[in-house]
Every structure is written in structure tokens, then in C-alpha cells.
């Protein structure tokens, strides 16, 4: 696949991991704003990396122009998908003035898929690229739902819980992303779903979760990336095998 990268308000770690994943899986990056490319990219997939300040018209125009030229748009990493630490500053610090005008890139443009993580691991991006390349709809489902407007989805209310994992649509409906960007602390922290396996703790890039049978979140370290929620074996259903 021909790949384009648009890097906005970002630290660059996601784009770097994407470059690594592309190198490993044999996909070619044909257009990258980090290499000074401008205009409309001629690519199959566009990865957007980072958040956007909505007072910055130049960036918004650039975002519109780039996304309109490419068929498949993916938010890469938590800043692009949910806002990540760009919105909720690390350490529960009072936000700077500019934080009130910063939103995830996915708020300003239609995205088809989102990859959670801060940054998403090279393996995670490679797994996504493989699923996309093979058009594996079932494997792509979580990325698709994570990118969507979950508020517009309606849960299947009469359906009882019939298994240890819930369908990805139903679980995402439990998370209030406006309060907690992409992660659902009820699922992670409360007893209802937690089996105490420790996956959230081992997946957390900020080492913000310690295990005392159940996870204990150290809010001072949390960067609101949602990796814990996405990694939790109980957060959404995955296909077996």
C-alpha cells in the first residue's frame, strides 16, 4: 500500500513507529508532512498523527485538503483519536489556556479507523496494516468502532451479556469519552469486569497502573491514552485463534 502521513500537534513518536512498521511490512511511505511534502497526497491510506488547535485555520485547511484526497483515513495514536495528553495534561496540572482549544484531529475530519496508544507500538501498527491489507473486516472492527461517533450508536439493550467479552460496540457505549478520553475507568477499575490479570498494567506506557490484585491507577502519571482500556481482555471481544 502507498501510505501518507500528516503530522499535526504531535511529538512524532507515532509517525516514527509507523515508519518502522512500514519498513518491516514492506509498505511504502509516499507522502509525509514530516519530510516537507505539501498538497494532495497520491496514496491509499492517510495516517493522521496528533491533535489540532481549532483556532489555527491554516492547520485545519491543511487537514481538509489532505484528507479529501485519500480514500482511507486513520487516526494514529491517542492524540489524533481521542486527544490524549494534549487535552488532559499529565500530572493533573491545571490546563494551560491553549488546552481548551485543542481537540483530536478526528473531531474535524471523518476517519475510518483509529489506533489507540501513546505511541501505538510498532507491532500494533503492523497488525493493523496487515488486517487492512487483507481486508480482514473482523479484525478491523475494533479500529473502526474506536474511530467512530460512538454517541450515534445505539446499544442492543435487550441483549443479555452472554460471554466474558462484550461486542466492541456495546463496550464502547459504556465509555464516556468526553470525561475520560477513550478509556473507561469503570471497566478497568471497578470489579464488575476486572479479573485481575494485569494486562492494563503491563500495557500502560506511563507506568501509571500498579496491581494490588486489581489495578490501582496513579492519576498523577496517567496520560489519558486509553491503552489500558483497549488492551483489557474484557473490554471488547476479539476473534479467537
Amino acid at each position, binding site marked *: 500500500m502507498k501510505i501518507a502521513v500528516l503530522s499535526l500537534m504531535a511529538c512524532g513518536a507515532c509517525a516514527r513507529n509507523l515508519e518502522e512498521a512500514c519498513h518491516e511490512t514492506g509498505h511504502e511511505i509516499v507522502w509525509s508532512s514530516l519530510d516537507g511534502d505539501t498538497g494532495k497526497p497520491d496514496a491509499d491510506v492517510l495516517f493522521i498523527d496528533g491533535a489540532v488547535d481549532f483556532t489555527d485555520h491554516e492547520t485545519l485547511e491543511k487537514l481538509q485538503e489532505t484528507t479529501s484526497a485519500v480514500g482511507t483515513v486513520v487516526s494514529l495514536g491517542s492524540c489524533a483519536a481521542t486527544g490524549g495528553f494534549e487535552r488532559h495534561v499529565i500530572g493533573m496540572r491545571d490546563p494551560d489556556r491553549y488546552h481548551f482549544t485543542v481537540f483530536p484531529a478526528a473531531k474535524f475530519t471523518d476517519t475510518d479507523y483509529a*489506533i*489507540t*496508544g501513546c505511541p*501505538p*507500538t*510498532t*507491532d*500494533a501498527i503492523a*497488525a493493523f496494516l496487515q488486517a487492512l491489507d487483507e481486508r480482514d473486516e473482523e*479484525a478491523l472492527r*475494533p479500529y473502526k468502532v474506536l474511530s467512530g461517533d460512538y*454517541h450515534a450508536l*445505539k*446499544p442492543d*439493550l435487550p441483549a*443479555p*451479556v*452472554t*460471554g*466474558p*467479552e*462484550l461486542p466492541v460496540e*456495546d*463496550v464502547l*457505549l*459504556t465509555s*464516556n469519552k468526553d470525561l475520560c478520553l477513550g478509556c473507561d475507568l*469503570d471497566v478497568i477499575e471497578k*470489579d*464488575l*469486569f*476486572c*479479573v*485481575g*490479570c*494485569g*494486562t492494563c*498494567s*503491563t*500495557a*500502560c*506506557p506511563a507506568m501509571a497502573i500498579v*496491581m494490588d*490484585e*486489581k489495578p490501582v491507577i496513579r492519576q498523577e502519571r496517567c496520560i489519558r491514552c486509553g*491503552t*489500558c482500556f*483497549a*488492551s*483489557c*481482555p*474484557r473490554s471488547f471481544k*476479539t*476473534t*479467537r485463534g
Partner: protein
Amino acid sequence: MRKILRKLVGKEEETETGTDGGERPLDPELVGEYRTVLLTRATDERVREAGQDGGTTTALLAHALDEGHVDAVVAAVKKNGWKPEPRIITDPDELIEAAGSKYSISPNVSLLNEALAAHESVAIVGTPCQITAVRKAQKYPYGLPDTDAVALTVGIFCTENFEYDNLLALLKDMNVDIDDVERMDISKGKFIVLTKDGEEHTVPVKELGRYSNEACEYCTDFTAEEADVSVGSVGAPDGWNVLIVRTETAEELVQSAVENDVLETKDPEEGNLNLVEKLSEDKKTRIQASKCATWRPYHPNVPL
């Protein structure tokens, strides 16, 4: 389901529908896909002594370390007062500390990142839910790199687990002090506690529900269906284990363990494998009676 159908259509039909050359000892719809089922125990008496039943898990993992099949094992060791704690073990002799069941939550997966960073290939022992977590991380490695280096997953049969405080409450209700406990076991439908003075205290498994971890109520996996190899005591004669081998790599490892006289085996006919199927089926149906079955997703646009 297939099992119920079989009962309905009678035994003649059963042999006819068994397409792949004869009856399989366990129904894959209840216990997951597998290659072989064996009854095994550790040849080393010291391991059997330390282990819960046949010491198969400990012996198999020690063999995997010895043979260089894996460089490290993530397992739960017992701390003071029966509180388990996950640990990365590289010395086969140290594995003996991790032998035996602990009836409390040990977040084994929480050490996986550390283990993968330090070692080329890693084995992990865990409850069915922990094995599911590892499989999910392999498919969606959001925050965990190098999950391909998980060379072996050993799943332990599990009906439910207890938070440590609830285990203490359960023992208190049985009039047992945790420091006096010599051994805990779930066997033949009973939770059995053996104290240091040689006394045996029992509670029927059915009464354990209110002490167990809430999330266990809607788990449907008894035999760790996604593991490379699953181990348990249900259905095995005393002092033996049921071993469900599910993948080719696990099969090779088990074979080499048997050839090297680390594990002894017995014909599965000598056990009661129907029990494994029964408990698997129980776990798949009990979710319908759990309070989780009435849980509904929260949605901002739909009133509660």
C-alpha cells in the same frame, strides 16, 4: 450442544457421526480445540509433593527451561499468608516455589512486558482469563511489543477465583486461620482446607459463589481454551493431572518431557473425563443465571 444432540440421537448415531476416525475423548465444543488428552504426573516425587496434584505444570515448565525451549517463566509464587505474587523465574529449581494452586488473584500478565524485554522467549502460566489476555495482546498489541516471544502458554483449569480479602472471609467463616493452613484444594465438588494440626475443613463448591470475584460470574472458559496446553486435576485419579494439549509446539514439548522421563503418562480411560466436560458445560451455562446477565451498557442517549 453437540453433546445434548448425541444424547438424543443415541449411541449408534454417535459412532456414525464421529468422522475423524473414532470417538474423541473430549468434546471440542465444551473444552475448545485440542490435539491430545493425557493423564500425566511428574516423575520426580519432590515435584509431586510440592505440586497441587500431579505436579505436571511445574515439571513441564522446568523441562522447558532445561531444554532451552523458553528462557523465563512467569508464574505465581506464594507469599506469606497464602497471598500469591507473580514472578519471573529463570532457574528450574526456583520453579518449585511456584508449584501448587493458590486460591487468590495473581496478576501474572502484569510482568509480561518486563519478561519480554529481558528474555528471548517466555512461558506464562495463568488462569483462562489471563491466557485470553495474552492472546488478545498478540492480536492487538496496543501497548505490548514482541508478544511473538511468548513461546508457551499454560492454562490452569478454573471455576472461579477469590480476592484475597474474600478468601480470608471464607476461611474465617470456616473457622480457619490463614496461618494454620497447610493445604487448600478444590476436589470432588468441595473446597477442602487442611490445617497444620491435620484437621480437614470442607465447604461445598456451590456455596463459594458469594465469596468469588464478581467478574468470574460471567466467564465461560473452564479449561483455558486458548492456551497451548491446559492442566487441571478434574477428572484425573488422585495424584494425577489431566493435560489437554492444543498446539503443535506444546505437543512436541510434552513428547520430549515424556521421552526424557520428566512426565509419566497414563491412559485417559483411567480417568473420568466426563467431569471435565460437565464442569465446562456448567461454566458455559451459569452466566445466564448471573447478575451480569442483567447488566446493560451505559449510554448517554438512552435512559437507564
